[in-house]
């Protein structure tokens, strides 16, 4: 379905090797896990066993030292295999949230945590979003109060994917009250903490949700939850900067996940349109069916170019200082937006192409359609990307 000319040899190696691992997990596996809302732990374990969770971690820490261009291809291949966003989300934080740890963590943090994440023994979740802050991350309220050689965390996080199965959380919390800092982007700190449900002050509740039901999403409550002071990653108060570093990368990964979902849905729609005969002709002979699919394909291809362009810029920016933070931010945000929209369009049309069968779980497209809403909302909504482009590219006054 996707045209693969122009990718690097390594990207194509990643694509075929990841597809091979995924081929052991057919659509029935994902249907069952979606319906029963059970964690796809065998899938996470299989990817870990084959070394994939360390794809973008440095070699000296046990990873494979590849870039976001390759990690994006990995995430796309996962969702494209039929695993969808559920499959991608079951490993997403392990691939992505470990980046700031590798870069800013101290030796004992990286050496104890990363090998266990790469081997699959420990899983990681990412705790940023809060119910009372929303997209306004800088107004987050969860507070980590220093108390001798511990911090005590109090506050609430929401939508934390995989918190039920994670051993570790990368937690963004305030360490200096917002009225005592010069800029609201200061006073936030990043921690790598244990999620020890046996200890007092930690509680979590699963959120019932529309799609991706195989992976849990949670409200997480902290009430004077004690964490050792050495859970701090990097410098205190510099947490937002550290997180920002990884945000562009996450945009790329999510764009890849969306693309995979879109291509999976579109491929299925084209197959169905070829086979389903109504009025003595395959439905795909009707241009009312074929044209929307052709249009969806071009939208996906366009988004694909934007996505892998952004990923390439991200990787190149590590050495090439002529790539500005502005160009990189614009490229990554635009790519995420375009991929999310293209995936949604493809998934919706795939359902409609199937007529009534599009509504049946057995045909998978309804599952992918439900999941195609996620990249439009998280980790940053499409409205916020439109705000960003309006302000940074069109130089229009900021609306919020």
């Amino acid at each position: 379905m996707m045209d693969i000319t122009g990718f690097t040899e390594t990207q194509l190696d990643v694509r075929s090797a990841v597809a091979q691992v995924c081929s052991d997990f057919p659509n029935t596996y994902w249907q069952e896990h979606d319906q029963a809302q059970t964690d796809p732990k065998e899938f996470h374990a299989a990817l870990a066993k084959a070394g994939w969770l360390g794809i973008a971690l440095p070699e000296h820490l046990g990873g494979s030292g590849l870039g976001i261009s390759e990690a994006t291809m990995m995430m796309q291949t996962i969702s494209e295999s039929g695993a969808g966003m559920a499959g991608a989300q079951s490993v997403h934080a392990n691939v992505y949230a470990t980046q700031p740890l590798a870069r800013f963590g101290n030796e004992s943090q990286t050496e104890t945590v990363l090998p266990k994440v790469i081997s699959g023994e420990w899983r990681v979740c990412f705790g940023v979003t809060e119910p009372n802050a929303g997209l306004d991350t800088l107004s987050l309220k969860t507070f980590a109060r220093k108390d001798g050689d511990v911090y005590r965390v109090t506050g609430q996080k929401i939508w934390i994917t995989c918190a039920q199965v994670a051993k570790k959380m990368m937690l963004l919390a305030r360490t200096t009250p917002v009225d005592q800092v010069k800029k609201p982007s200061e006073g936030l700190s990043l921690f790598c903490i244990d999620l020890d449900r046996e200890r007092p002050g930690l509680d979590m509740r699963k959120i019932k949700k529309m799609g991706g039901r195989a992976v849990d999403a949670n409200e997480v409550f902290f009430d004077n939850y004690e964490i050792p002071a050495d859970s701090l990653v990097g410098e205190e108060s510099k947490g937002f900067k550290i997180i920002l570093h990884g945000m562009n990368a996450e945009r790329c990964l999510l764009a890849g996940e969306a693309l995979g979902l879109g291509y999976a849905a579109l491929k299925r729609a084209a197959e169905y349109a070829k086979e389903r005969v109504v009025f003595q002709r395959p439905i795909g002979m009707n241009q009312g069916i074929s044209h929307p699919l052709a249009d969806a394909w071009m939208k996906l291809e366009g988004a694909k170019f934007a996505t892998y362009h952004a990923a390439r810029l991200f990787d190149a920016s590590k050495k090439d200082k002529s790539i500005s933070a502005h160009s990189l931010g614009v490229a990554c945000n635009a790519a995420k937006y375009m991929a999310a929209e293209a995936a949604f369009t493809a998934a919706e049309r795939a359902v409609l192409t199937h007529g009534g069968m599009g509504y049946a779980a057995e045909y998978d497209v309804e599952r992918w359609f439900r999941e195609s809403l996620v990249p439009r909302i998280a980790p940053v909504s499409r409205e916020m990307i439109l705000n960003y482009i309006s302000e940074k590219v069109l130089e229009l006054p900021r609306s919020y």
Partner: protein
Amino acid sequence: MRPTSARLLNILVPVKRAVDYAVKIRVNPQQTGVDLNVKHSMNPFDEIAVEEAVQLRKRLKDAVQSIKVVTIGPPKASETLRTALAMGADSAIHIEIPEADPAPEPLGVARALAKLIEREKVDLVIMGKQAIDDDAGQTGQMLAGLLDWPQATFASKLDVDPEAKSATVLREVDGGSEEIKCRLPLVVTTDLRLNEPHYATLPNIMKAKKKPLEKLTPADLSVDLTPRLETIKVTEPPARIGGGKVANVDELVAKLKEAGFTAA
């Protein structure tokens, strides 16, 4: 004490790039062959052969000195060699033929391999019993014949004793299995039950990129790969006529009787 060189094992595994087993095969409109513009991967029997070589090294440790893989094929076939290197082979040889050339036939392949074995030190050849594209199932036997080596075909279990320079092989034969003992050097062809290949891990895929891959041409080995067979026509099997559904076993038995099948 290090084993003496006489007891070290050098393994050669020939591999073929073939249309992926999961691809729905389509005959081309000219009826000269099948559509090759589809996904290719390593012939599954060859995957088993590579895996067996890698597992032999795990079992015999240092006694396995080298695992070399070889393919004869167009430029793209080097991908298949990289896969084999990622699975654990040490080095690779690509006998490259132009994209437009016809695929070599079993005799040509066996001759090229025999010539290569004259150059390389090889004690054991492990290869697929057949490739899933042509299903010829002849190359291993021809190679053993050309080399005048023993052969153990359709292996479902392989034990090698490097000290004694011998191998015990369980073979899949009609009605069961047969155990044979052979001297090395030896040609073994793999059956499905020999092992279950592991996926290459990402770190090994990356390491494979740095392993040596030597390119040769048929001329370097002075072999002639010109086909001796002419394909006259390739056609699809006749379409299956739709079956019927039965409600229960009794009805099934009745239908079978109707169709002339009896219990005896």
